[in-house]
């Protein structure tokens, strides 16, 4: 499942920013969602306590994952659901393929699963002659454009409606130039309806899996995941092992937080509970590790597994809003993606923890209170020590550290000033410095404060007037 990457986040972002009009509406659309989230969260007086409760419940889950997984497995079996365990993406994909093959099925409908994107399931199955249709509208648009989702909740948020119209013209035969969202949605609906009716296998993701009951909950707004599941002969759910919650009543915390954080809605239109197969239906659930236990073993980063994939950290992140989700080159983009991705492939994703100003807004909106920006800082330390920090090496950190820690090399006021001018990376007085491309240098005041203080001494009150 190895991907390759030829450009880093900064280069991808720079390309995205060239189309400034696009960046402005992308930024505006996501900021609008952040504002909706603010309004929704401020209507609930106990919002901050809800976040704390969710954080504690998830802490409990990741601290007792072994027990909850076994309990969940036992209850799934009791309910008549077949349980599969997958150590990695390869195993996960092979399990799905084996289920399809046993039934001699060559078509599948899929919805609301970032995990299968992470596992690159579509590509795997297509190589084996199985066609997969993503039934979530945004995911479908990304699929026909042969592009990964750019946002975990809003997969094609970076696309203009005209671009979607053009795609539909090419793939679904709509009239050229048609870009009205309502009309395009109608066309997609009609097309997808036929797929639902003819496909015998439906795969969905899982938002919450309840250990005590062996049921799982899928939250959507379109209902397409439900339609696929209801019409299927074989229903498959794929979930990361961290998606558990201990009890059903904990949903009263998480369902209140999820949609408000994600889009500012009080709740998703559909919160569907799946527990038992219908008569004549087969249900499978695949529990996937794919690096999660490795992350669980990293004391500084295990908290990232509390994530409920609401996307609020992306909507609030100014770097994400200005650079677009595809610039992260990981299924999960934005701040949460930047702390999850290095666990999957530290070398390939070494750039992501640096794609942040550490402003901390992500940690504040996170409904399960993951300290995202602190983990970004900590990943930077790890990545540098492992020797993967290609872009920051150029900044001459060693020389800088040596000079700044030695009063003798920095000592007198004038020399200090000259040293700063020549060495602090963001104020290097050199026109080749990236600072200077679109920003002027500070003019300075001729005399440094240290020089002034040296001359005027400590009894300067008169001079200052």
């Amino acid at each position, binding site marked *: 499942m190895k991907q390759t990457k030829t450009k880093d986040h900064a280069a991808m*972002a*720079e390309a995205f920013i060239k189309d400034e009009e696009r960046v402005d509406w992308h*930024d505006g659309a996501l*900021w609008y969602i952040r504002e909706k989230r*603010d309004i929704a*969260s*401020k209507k609930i007086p106990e919002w*901050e306590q809800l976040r704390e409760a969710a954080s504690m419940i998830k802490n409990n889950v990741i601290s007792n994952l072994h027990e909850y997984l076994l309990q969940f497995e036992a209850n799934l079996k009791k309910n008549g659901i077949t349980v599969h365990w997958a150590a990695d993406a390869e195993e996960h994909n092979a399990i799905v393929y084996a289920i399809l093959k046993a039934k001699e099925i060559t078509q599948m409908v899929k919805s609301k699963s970032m995990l299968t994107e992470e596992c690159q399931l579509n590509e795997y199955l297509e190589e084996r002659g199985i066609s997969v249709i993503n039934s979530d509208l945004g995911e479908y648009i990304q699929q026909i454009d042969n592009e990964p989702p750019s946002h975990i909740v809003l997969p094609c948020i970076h696309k203009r409606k005209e671009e979607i119209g053009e795609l539909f013209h090419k793939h679904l035969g709509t009239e050229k130039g048609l870009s009205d969202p309502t009309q395009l949605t109608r066309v997609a609906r009609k097309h997808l309806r036929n797929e639902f009716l003819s496909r015998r296998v439906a795969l969905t993701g899982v938002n919450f899996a309840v250990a005590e009951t062996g049921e799982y909950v899928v939250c959507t707004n379109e209902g397409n995941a439900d339609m696929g599941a209801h019409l299927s002969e074989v229903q498959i759910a794929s979930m990361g092992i961290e998606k558990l919650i201990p009890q059903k009543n904990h949903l009263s915390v998480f369902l209140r937080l999820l949609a408000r954080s994600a889009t500012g809605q009080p709740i998703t239109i559909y919160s569907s509970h799946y527990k038992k197969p219908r008569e004549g239906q087969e249900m499978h659930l695949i529990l996937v590790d794919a690096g999660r236990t490795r992350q669980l073993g990293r004391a500084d980063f295990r908290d990232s597994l509390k994530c409920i994939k609401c996307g609020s950290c992306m909507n609030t992140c*100014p770097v994400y809003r*200005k*650079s677009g989700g595809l610039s992260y080159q990981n299924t999960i983009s934005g701040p949460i993606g930047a702390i999850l991705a290095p666990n999957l492939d530290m070398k390939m994703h070494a750039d992501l923890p*640096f*794609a*942040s*100003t*550490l*402003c*901390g*807004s992500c*940690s504040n909106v996170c409904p399960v209170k993951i300290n995202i920006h602190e983990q970004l800082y900590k990943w*930077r*330390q*790890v990545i*540098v*020590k492992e020797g993967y*920090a290609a872009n*920051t090496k150029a900044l001459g950190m*060693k020389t800088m*550290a040596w*000079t*700044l*820690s*030695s*009063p003798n090399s*920095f000592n007198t*006021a004038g020399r*200090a*000033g000259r040293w*700063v001018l020549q060495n*602090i990376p*963001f*104020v290097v007085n050199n026109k080749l410095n990236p*600072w200077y*491309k*679109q*920003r*002027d240098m*500070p*003019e*300075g*005041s001729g*005399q*440094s*404060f240290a020089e*002034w*203080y040296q001359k005027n001494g*400590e009894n*300067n*009150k008169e001079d*200052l007037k």
Partner: protein
Amino acid sequence: MTVGLFIPCYVNQFYSNAAKATLQLLQKLGVEVVYPPKQTCCGQPMANSGFEHLSQGCSDLFIENFSAFEYIVAPSASCVLHVKDHLTSQTNPELALSIRSKVFELVEFLTDVLKVEKLDATFPHKVGLHHSCHGLRGLYLSQMSELNAPPFSKPQHLLNMVKGLEQISLDRSDECCGFGGTFCIAEEAVSVKMGKDRVNDHIKSGAEYITSSDLSCLMHLEGILHRNNEKVKVIHIAEILNATL
């Protein structure tokens, strides 16, 4: 009360007026201020770039310069936060921890320690307040827009005491400006776009000045303003709080 004045490296070089205003303001308020001459840098540029392990020398020097003071005050929220969160010592860890609790950003020192309720300052201009992220979400100088919690703002509280000053309101009250230390170089395009958008919010709202308790944000915004020949100026909050006609 004796305060050790910590003037970060780039402030010393480029913004000596802000440093002088900090010194004078504290003196006006009856504080004894000493500037240890051998100071350099808090080590943040290294640490935030992933080279925290190279910043021990900076920490040691900081301790050497400032351990004797009752309080340490700096006109830079970001550098203060770095010291508060990361100052360490291999030989005397307790001393490092005690220094962490003695270091204050200027605004919080004025409101929390000196408990200033009145200032003799006049600044008859329209001013936009830029919250630095480290001041806001690190030092809690103001309430953060993301949280469902009662509003407050220490810098606004102080600016309200300044005669003639009119505070303008922004569309996005506390969005990051995109400076981010070495981020402003490593992610130049994103950094500048973020800065441009912050600047435009202030311009649109009619600000004559953008002020902040962090000069690093202001240096970045000023670089963009200047390049685009905008009339709006940046000014450190110490210069406003110390301004007379």
